[in-house]
């Protein structure tokens, strides 16, 4: 029996597409102390703070219907929880119900973690489906 689903996590380029989509926003074009380090999860992390990384957590293609659905992580890391909240809210506003290339994203949930003394990490989860 053929499997119902195919794991396509490594075959889709959604993290790069979302990274480019975000990069077009003014807030991600700042330089100097205001610079935000925006990377796809496949790239090394350029900074411990003011870091926003995007990665596909899971992506499955339904072999019967051909549809692809998955979960995208957008992670924000900094020492300032206020900045994390601000940028998290902003990302949620612009990415919820957004269409990036041929994917539709829907905000799912978020969690804030303390990763070290004075360093915090917010994980935003978006469900996505290929249109």
């Amino acid at each position: 029996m053929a499997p119902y689903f195919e794991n396509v996590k490594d075959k889709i380029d959604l993290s790069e597409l979302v990274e480019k989509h975000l990069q077009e926003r003014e807030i991600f074009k700042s330089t100097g102390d205001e610079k935000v380090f925006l990377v796809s999860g496949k790239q090394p992390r350029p900074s411990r703070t003011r870091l926003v990384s995007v990665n596909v957590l899971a992506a499955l293609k339904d072999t019967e219907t051909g549809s692809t659905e998955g979960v995208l992580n957008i992670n924000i890391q900094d020492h300032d929880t206020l900045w994390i909240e601000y940028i998290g809210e902003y990302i949620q506003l612009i990415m919820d119900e957004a269409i990036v290339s041929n994917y539709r994203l829907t905000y799912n949930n978020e969690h804030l973690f303390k990763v070290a003394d004075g360093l915090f990490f917010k994980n935003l989860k978006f469900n996505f489906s290929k249109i």
Partner: protein
Amino acid sequence: MLQNLKTAIREKFVMQKLAAEALEMNAGNLTKLIKSTPEEAGRMRNETISKLERVFSEYNIEWILGRSEIKYKEDAELSQSAAGQNSYSKMPNPQGSGFLLTNGKGLGAIADDEMAMFDDEGNTKFYEISPGVYRMKVPLVPETAKAGYLTGFADAEYLEDQEYIVTTVYKYHKGKYRAFRVIGDSMDVDRRTTFVHGDVIIGRELKKELWNSRFHTHKYPFYVFVTKNDGILFKELTSHDVENGILTLHSLNEDKDAFPDFELNLEDVALVFNIVKRESEI
């Protein structure tokens, strides 16, 4: 509708389709399964029930099917075991003196008259069930008590009300032990050493005066840290900077974006438990 199945899927999988994949069914059939009426659930094929038992092995299948209030399999087994003990206790002793309190099948249950032992501080209870084999009774820190754990921890009355985990050990263990239930999937990895949501882990408390010595990172590298402000953490310890009291903690889950390694200062920690045993279902 099988609301509990829906809850278990939400707790264990980031998307319903991953659950469908694990259950080897298509997405439509899983949706139909979740929407089953109690009558339909009663007619569920054995093959489907076996798949549910395999994928949700830490959950009580009766709970998933909406027929029990006991969520986790281990709790259901303990409850059955306790019920079994009661029924044995009512069996007349063929030798004519009162009632039999245990028999071979009742090893999982601890009868009141079995030999009980306490450690030097009166903490952990042991019951000898055969020479060199003991049942150890460990308080389970309940999920719901986590937020108030620090204030309630030293309260003897509070501990009396606690749930207990009973586990088999082969030697007398000194010290203060506590059991915790694993929450989330940060320690879930496709290897022999994995801790899935719902597993019960048992830890031995490391007294504060020992925190100046290097913690084990080889034989028993897993620890539970009860932090002063951030609840309870369960992680693998990868290094311990003894001089500065800094621990580097690691999640087994390979999704390093969601679960990066991080440092924890022992100043932020109230209690440390070195994990010595995992109770899990296959």
